[in-house]
């Protein structure tokens, strides 16, 4: 069939982890060094092309990590096909945040919901990971990937996984990016701030 397949994606995580930056990097090829805090929920969508010819529509729901909007997330998690759990690798409490959000997801997700754990701000930390983080990731069946929205690292890989994972017939396919990313910004620019 030539019909467009749809994947509903919800993005959750602690405030300031870089959820919106990930989406903006993927959608617009841009990186905001001083992004606004997301309030409530925001919606974006994009149709991507797989290298095997299939078109996938990604519905991207960007949620607010702040406490006062936290109760809104479950409804979206329940209907999502893929839940992205974004943690800030440079945050010393990222393990605690991971545990809490994973609890929320596991409690609310549907049978068809897959979870991908995203370790963001990869560019700000060394290669060594804390043992607790490593242990939790090993225990879980969820996919884990490290990204840097600022450096545009692993963004394509992440969203290829998001687009293809729900469909066994496209297990090994990749997203074809229609636009090349912009040049990497100067290293002297400020690092993204945590809120």
């Amino acid at each position: 069939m030539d019909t467009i397949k749809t994947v509903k994606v919800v993005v959750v995580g602690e405030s300031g982890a870089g959820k919106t930056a990930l989406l903006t990097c993927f959608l617009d090829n841009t990186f905001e060094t001083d992004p606004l805090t997301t309030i409530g929920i925001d919606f974006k969508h994009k149709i991507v092309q797989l290298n095997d010819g299939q078109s996938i529509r990604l519905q991207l729901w960007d949620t607010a990590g702040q406490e006062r909007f936290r109760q809104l997330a479950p409804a979206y998690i329940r209907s999502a096909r893929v839940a992205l759990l974004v943690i800030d690798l440079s945050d010393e409490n990222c393990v605690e945040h991971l545990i809490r959000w994973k609890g929320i997801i596991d409690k609310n997700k549907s049978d068809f919901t897959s979870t991908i754990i995203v370790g963001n701000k990869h560019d700000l930390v060394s290669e060594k990971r804390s043992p607790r983080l490593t242990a939790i990731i090993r225990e879980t069946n969820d996919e884990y990937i490290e990204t840097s929205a600022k450096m545009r690292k692993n963004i394509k890989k992440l969203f290829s996984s998001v687009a293809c994972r729900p469909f066994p017939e496209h297990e090994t396919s990749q997203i074809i990016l229609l636009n090349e990313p912009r040049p990497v910004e100067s290293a002297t620019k400020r690092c993204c701030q945590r809120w």
Partner: protein
Amino acid sequence: MPNSSSTSQPATTGSETASTSYVNYVEMSAEQEYFLYELETTDSGSMGLVLRAIYDTGDVQSFARALQQRISHYDKNIQKVCSFHYQSFVDAMQELMKLKEQCQDIKEETVAIDAEIQQISQRLCQKKQEIVRYRKLMKNAKTAMDQIAVCLPVLENYAKLQEQMSNRKYYQALKTLEELEHTHLALVEKYRFTQVLAKSMAPVRLEIKEKAYSEFKDFLENIKKVAGRIGKHASKDTAEQHSFGVTDAERAKKIQEEARKNASNVEIEVSADGSIVKKNMSPKRNMKMQVEDDEQVSAQDLIDFTPVHRCCQIFNVLGAKEEFEQYYRQQRKEQCDLVIEPTHKMNNFKHYVEYLDEIVGFFVVEDQILMTQSNLSTTVDKDKLWDNALMKIRQHLDARFGGSPDVLMMLKMKKVILLFILTMKSYGYAVAPLYELLQNFRDQYNEILVKEYCAQFERDLEKDNYTPITVNSEEEFRTIIRKFPFYKRSMEQEPFPRRFPFSPFVTDAYTQAKNYLIGCLKFMDNLQLNTSAVDDTVRRCANVLLGRWAGVLKSFVHKRLSMIQLVQITINLGYLEKSCESLGAFITSKTSGEEAIGTTSHQVVLSEKVFRDVRSEVEQQIDECMRSKVDEIIDLANYDWELPAAAGQASEFISDLINFLQTTFTSFTNLPSGLAKHVCTQTCKHISQSMSDFLLSPETKCISTGALDQFSLDVMQCEMFTTRCPVAGVDPQTLSMTFADLRQLLDLVMSSDWTTFNAEYGKDHAKYLRVKASTAIVVLEKMIEFERKSTGFFGIAKGDRKKLLDTIVRQLKLLEI
């Protein structure tokens, strides 16, 4: 004639001789007689003429013979006379010989007597000689004394002249010289030494003139060096005098101003002292002494004006008064040009202080000279100098500060220029153009301030987190209250954390507005404006800033802003508008103090309406943003219009849409209720319209009954959303009406209640009042199309349904007509 000739002859030679001679030569010719007569009687001067006449007759030989005859004749006569007197001659000779002997005797006797007398009177002669010598001596002595008495003043004055020249007392020397030349020297011109003196005095006048010029140049050089200090003192005097006449009511304010002026003076003094240190390199102690000495004297006392007065007198005596006046004016003009032309290195505040001090000093000196030596310069000359200088000063200050972006420097310069103005005014110079300059600077200064605060405003907009301020303690709460005048009685009773409705942007903007107003006020101190003028000006400045801010906001909201940003901006704008009243009170407290009460009715009103347009703009952006998001979600709709049966629950995109709306409207709780209701209503209308467009779109060719059922379920979800009062204050009935048209259409078609529809069409209380026949026809035709497609697959049994629908369509078309 012959008779006459005969008469004259006896008179000279005796009658006898004459008669004889005449008678003897009677035979001569008359002409020859005439010629001989003429020769005898004429003088030697006419001899030539006679001889010429003789030669002209041509008878020279004849005349020569006649002449010879007369000569012989005369010789004969002479011999007769001698013979006649011979005997008497001899007698006489004998008597003479006797007399000779007698005389010899007398002579010898006389010689003896003379010798005797000589011998006797020799002593007497000697005495007489002595007397003559002594008398001559006395006379010479007297003459010498008289002449010397006349010469003495010359010598005295000459010595005096020399001494005065040595002591550089040129005026006295000149007076002495004048006296010498016109009084004393005239009396003794004949003497050689006085001529030498006179010659040596000729260059003295010239030397005096040159010395006078030289002294005057030294004077000019001296006042040039001292002008800065004179200016400094004059400015200080002005600053002190300016506090005179302070009324009791203004005392506190004046004291504050005085403190500011003192600070300003201190700056000036430090600069001047620093300059002195650089110039003199004096030990600190001496410098202190010098400064202290300067304090004791007035500006005019810093310089000795004697040289200029002396020069006037000298040139007056020299008769070169006009020359000196011209020289003076020329020199002062050149000096003025030098003073008002700043050095090339005018690159910091201190240099400008020195520059203006030099100018003040120059004109103070000029004013002093005019008052004490009115013939040397005139008021017209002075004013001409000042007018020219004024133009140049304005040019230089404008060139340097006209485009200056440094508000602090402009404030400093304003103080300095103001002090300059007051100082020059106190000396009678016209200062109106400088006040104009200051007011131009004020306008430039305010423009710079506005630009700075607009840039800050934009930065605040960019960096705001668009989240209501949350405070967790009483201390934090008080901090916010102090920053921004927000009063809500119940808020103080709320437990922590407490939330203000506005974001940090509001407190920042309010603080910036107050700082801006304070900045405007700083420039207007002492600008010769009364209290109400200052108040009005500051209020106009405030309105300018608010207007600019509104412009910045209007541009800002056209960026890609999120819904929550727009919402918070709207809320913030409400509080900014309310704060205008507080800003007005702030201005009043800064400009008029308690006196403002009486003048409130005349105050320029702060323009809170400036935000009205931008508020509308933001609200429009909210509408557009909401519509855009709704459209994005509705684009997810993926209706299968040939669905055989409904899924039994709403479509996924509708569920997502409603979740989104609930989330968004939750954040609307702080919005002004009117706006929240408006956005909610508009959004529901938009959704309803979009859903209708789905159903009626030409792109949808056929619709199955199952598809209609699913569509109806989706509309039902929307209707349920409207009845849950998503925004406080919205009337559920009113909001539900947004889907009423769609609901009636669906009910009509799904229940096939065509009999009722046809019977009631056009009536006021029809059950399906909101449905147009044309709309129903569109839906029915899509259903017919679906039936037509189905017939081919499922057999003849469906044919009857198609016929029925066709019949209904025909009936509806009749209704349309």
